[in-house]
């Protein structure tokens, strides 16, 4: 059977150029007399996984952004008379609190909307910080090799020898829980994923002809890295960043769940799950709804990440 594990078998005539399915999917091939491949954008728009993932994310992100406009209540407002009210469709529930209320009578829907802002912002900042750290160290290790590489990779090894959640917990205790520290901790426990993948890519790209050519015409190291190598990393960075966001959303929730992430009265999905834990037997909705939204977010990000990986960097597909 001639099956490849890539999704290009549904080739339209446009797809059937010699460049298709090559490992170089992210590399521009102009001037070689080939017909132009459809742009990555249009391939992304035609990808079912990408559309589903992006759709989910757009809904979640927009509702988090619009939280002040669409929340039915103040997320922090306590109302003891209404505490532990079930969702609207259960007996005893009312449409005033569509998803019910928590142990302090706070509106679940509003808290989920506002909690999303915190969870998503933490994930975004932590991923950006992790990617900067990981890219710089990964490029340095791959480009310069030798001692630089050895030192950086040993740091990676040390980091990998800690269970990441434990390291994060320990650092949080030392630094004290706060929004900023949470981002630092999450970034520190995620940069290795960037640096490992990027180092491996740089090792290959470093010895391509166009880099050698650049060297031959006297380009400096800085120029070679920024102008020659970096543009070829954009695909893999996008993919790893997307998948890291998903991982970070879960890590933040886990840390908040263990009491060392976001601190009350601010709320995140993970903290809501944690708070609802004591009320499992009387109020299933406190843990169920934030959990569902959290899961939908991660599924959305992962779907999009998978689609991006198929399109931008088919080689990564095999690493699961």
């Amino acid at each position, binding site marked *: 059977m001639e*099956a490849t594990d890539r999704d290009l078998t549904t080739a339209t005539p446009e797809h059937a150029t010699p460049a298709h399915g090559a490992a170089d999917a992210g590399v521009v091939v102009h001037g070689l007399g080939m017909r132009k491949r459809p742009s990555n954008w249009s391939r992304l728009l035609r990808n079912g996984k990408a559309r589903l993932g992006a759709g989910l994310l757009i809904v979640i992100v927009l509702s988090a952004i619009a939280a002040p406009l669409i929340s039915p209540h103040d997320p922090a407002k306590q109302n003891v008379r209404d505490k532990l009210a079930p969702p609207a469709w259960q007996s005893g529930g009312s449409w005033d609190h569509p998803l019910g209320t928590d142990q302090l009578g706070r509106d679940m829907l509003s808290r989920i909307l506002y909690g999303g802002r915190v969870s998503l912002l933490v994930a975004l900042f932590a991923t950006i910080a992790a990617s900067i750290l990981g890219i710089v160290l990964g490029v340095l290790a791959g480009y310069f090799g030798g001692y630089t590489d050895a030192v950086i990779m040993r740091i990676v090894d040390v980091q990998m*020898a*800690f269970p990441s959640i434990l390291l994060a917990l320990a650092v949080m205790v030392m630094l004290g829980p706060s929004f900023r520290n949470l981002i630092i901790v999450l970034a520190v426990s995620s940069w290795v994923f960037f640096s490992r993948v990027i180092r491996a890519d740089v090792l290959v790209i470093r010895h391509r002809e166009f880099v050698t050519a650049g060297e031959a015409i006297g380009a400096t190291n800085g120029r070679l890295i920024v102008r020659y190598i970096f543009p070829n990393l954009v695909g893999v960075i996008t993919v790893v960043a997307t998948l890291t966001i998903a991982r970070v959303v879960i890590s933040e929730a*886990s840390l908040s769940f*263990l009491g060392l992430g976001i601190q009350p009265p601010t709320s995140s999905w993970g903290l809501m799950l944690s708070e609802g834990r004591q009320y499992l037997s009387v109020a299933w909705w406190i843990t*169920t709804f934030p959990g569902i939204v959290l899961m*939908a*977010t991660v*599924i959305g990000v992962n779907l999009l990440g998978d689609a991006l990986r198929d399109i931008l960097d088919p080689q990564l597909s095999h690493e699961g």
Partner: protein
Amino acid sequence: MQRYIIQRLFHGIFVLFGVSLVTFFLIQLTGDPAAAMLGPDATPDEIQELRERRGYDDPIVVQYVRYLSSIARADFGTSHLYNQEAFSLVVERVPATFELTIAALVVTLLFSVPLGIWSAVKRDSMIDRLSAIFVFGNQAMPVFWAGILGIMIFSIKFGWLPASGRGSLKHLLMPAIVLGLHSAAYQTRLLRSAMLDVLNADFVRTARAKGLREFVVINSHALRNALIPLVTATGIQFASLMGGAVITETVFAWPGVGRLAVQAINNRDIPLVMAATFFFALTILVVNLLVDLSYGLIDPRVRVD
């Protein structure tokens, strides 16, 4: 081979050295390690006494060397939470964590091996699709939420399984399944893609061409070649479970090393945190070494040197 083992041991020692640097640095970050070691109830006199006894006023390099030598003797100090030698506390909890880890591994393999093979062999079939959905859903599910849902359904709603604690097989069942299924998603995906690679290889075509039964082709020709990534992943999983069952152990109040570490962290019990951290790092290093060495056994083509 011997040379490789020695090389890897050196590498391991180097990494442990790095771990010690990080933990030392972390202790320094907390401010006064004497205060941290004695806990919140200590009087200033007690703290000063310990500072002098432990030499916390010495130059930092001297302190670090002393710290290293105490680690080498597995002397992390006394846990103020339990008022016991920290490392022995960790060692006491190892059996519980080990039990959970093995049980979770069994669940993972029982689930992922058949599913991974099947979804590769019957690619794009119903099974393949269902397994893809399982993998996706599972990856998105934080393990603590899976645990909470399990408790909600099986303990609170149906009352079939105990929600927490250790003792009987019933206690083990839910944590093991939650933890096992969690990593089963990754293993399934990995085995599927390894099998897909192998199934297209020439030797599999040859095996088919000479008329072997499909069962033999898949199990003795294809699967054996797809095992390497699975062994790596299982080794990594074992190591990370030994250390990373932190959350599962907390959710189910499982009395293992992970839960002990969380308790220690929440109570700022520095000696205990250090002892647990070193135990984890050591476990991960040893397991990774064993995994690397096992390649040669599974696939004679792999020469470790």
